């Protein structure tokens, strides 16, 4: 007998999403990247138990799963902070001063790209190009694309998160 959706734990729900992706792709090894996308969107990162689970279900050696998970920039093996600041380091943003934004955030919060503040509040990430070149320099603050940034404006957004 299957449990009704209401009594499923959060973890079981996430597992179901992962299983659904694998089933949709016929449990073939080539579904690996699609499945990892689902794991990451369900958990926010690729956790070790999920990697093992996916390896087993798709009949792919764990070493290969780990290889793929670490090869692609979109995947992360570490949980992210409550808020995400993704600075675009594309060419147009570079020409318009994205390095200055990166320096300012790194210095103010003592984090390098890919790191999260100690209190788990803010993750600093970088992107190769957001394709929002008309707004350069641009960033994704949580879900919103914010453009024409200056170091001051960038820090102001992050400061707002701290206080909320």
């Amino acid at each position, binding site marked *: 007998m299957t449990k009704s959706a209401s009594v499923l734990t959060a973890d079981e729900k996430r597992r179901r999403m992962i299983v659904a992706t694998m089933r949709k792709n016929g449990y073939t*090894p080539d579904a690996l990247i699609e499945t990892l996308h689902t794991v990451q969107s369900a958990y926010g990162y690729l956790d070790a138990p999920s990697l093992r689970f996916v390896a087993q279900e798709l009949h792919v050696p764990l070493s290969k799963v780990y290889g793929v998970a670490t090869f*692609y920039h979109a995947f992360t093996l570490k949980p992210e902070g409550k808020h995400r600041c993704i600075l675009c380091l594309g060419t147009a943003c570079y020409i318009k001063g994205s390095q200055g934004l990166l320096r300012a955030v790194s210095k103010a919060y003592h984090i390098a790209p890919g790191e999260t503040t100690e209190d788990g509040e803010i993750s600093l990430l970088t992107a190769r190009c957001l394709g929002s070149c008309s707004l350069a320099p641009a960033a994704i603050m949580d879900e919103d694309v914010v*453009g024409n940034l200056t170091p001051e404006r960038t820090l102001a957004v992050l400061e707002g998160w701290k206080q909320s």
Partner: protein
Amino acid sequence: MIQHLNQPLTPEDLPRIAEAEHAADSAYEHTIHVCMAAGCLSQHSDQVKQGLEQQIKERGLTHCRVKGVGCMGLCSAGPLVSVRPQETLYQAVKREDAPAIIESVSSGAPATHLVCSTDRPFFTHQTKIVLANSGEIDPERLEDAIAVGGYQQLAYVLNELTSTQVIDQITRSGLRGRGGAGYPTGLKWGTVAKASGPHKFVICNADEGDPGAFMDRSVLESDPHRVLEGMAIAAYAVGANEGYIYIRAEYPLAIQRLKTAIRQAERVQLLGNSILGTSFNFHIHLRLGAGAFVCGEETALIASIEGKRGQPRPRPPFPAASGLWGAPTLINNVETYANIAPIIGNGPEWFANIGTKRSKGTKVFALAGKIANTGLIEVPMGTPLRTIIHEIGGGIPGGQRFKAAQTGGPSGGCIPAEYLDTPVDYESLTALGSIMGSGGLIVMDEQSCMVDVARFFMEFCMSESCGKCVPCRVGTAEMYELLSRIVQGRASMGDMELLQELCETVKYTSLCGLGQAAPNPVLSTMKYFRDEYLAHITEHRCPAGQCQFEAVAQEVQL
């Protein structure tokens, strides 16, 4: 309209739907187009659209309606709103401006404070083939695509032409791959068609990895059915029944619109089994990239679709002979597929008449950097850089002087002011040490340090190198170190020679295009801006004033 589009369509249905759409259109005196592509959306054009709809509802207007459309091109002036049929364009529209726009529609007098003049080179100097429907149709409605002739070329091809005739038309058009290298499309199709095998695949490369390039994203967001139609025609020509679109996960809107478009087309058998009542079957699957630049290389892309690490392999065998799962595979870029239906519709001679002797048709460019009009443009091949930058692009803002144009992303080069009159085509750009690339065009002014630009691209190539071959894996890291030394004022003249030598080695010995082209930004800047390199090395001075030597020197001591 909806009842038509739940059952399989026949070729005769297409003009009927188009006619019905036009009739429905003419019931409205005015249609207000609101750009719903990523550039304007990130400036809240969705709220503008809501505001306009609300105004129409509140005022009980029946003679005008609002339509969400794709990219209108001038992204820097977004959100853009265009009132039809007058073609009055409004820029930087906010939700609060909705009443003024609706009033202007009723009164007939434009809301002057928002008007964006369309009588200027940005709009008048363009020739639109790929972007013809972009900004005109609602990308989320199949009926809109059919109303402008969508899928009619597919119907024509399936019923009237043999696969050899299709390939012949594409060959005669002179179309070349728009992904960067410019391989003749007809030749590629012919090779895949001749290859033997029980299964063949068609792949659309939408892994637009060049930073500063957003052409493919805009095409997919603005007119996804055009790309699907092009892929289906290609599949028919080469004898494939399955296709993949490999798209960057960083483009959520384009992914969503593609998914919608595929679902719509499948529902009425414009894709899937027995397309348009014929015996031709073609299924399209979406595959999301995961943020690896090297996956733009065709063999790496194939590895990634197979669920593996995106590492290239030596060619031959080329994918045309042995590609996805070992089967003959056709890979083309988004823009290449978007050119197919117009070529079939207007004839190969029409297409071959546009452009230069060896580069036919148009090219879409994403203008960005230090330029007044950033956005998406489409110009005939052979248009001089000067026209693109100073007329269409509106020149350099802030009274600065033009210094260089960068084309082709990390695989391209920097073109200095003295070559501004170069016609933009595959051969001319290659001769200058750059490449056409996928169409990113970044403009730099006097404030950009060209050595640091070269270092920026080398950092990119270094971290995007897949690590499979030594010249690229080690070479890019070493070149990056040498360039860092130069911008920090720690380099000697010997380093400069070493850098030159290393560029040659990496260029000629790397396995795939990423490594082979990685030295291009360095080689082109060393050629055209040698004095800047020398100023850094011998005088510890950055002519652009970007590099901070003292600060770095202190860090080094620490």
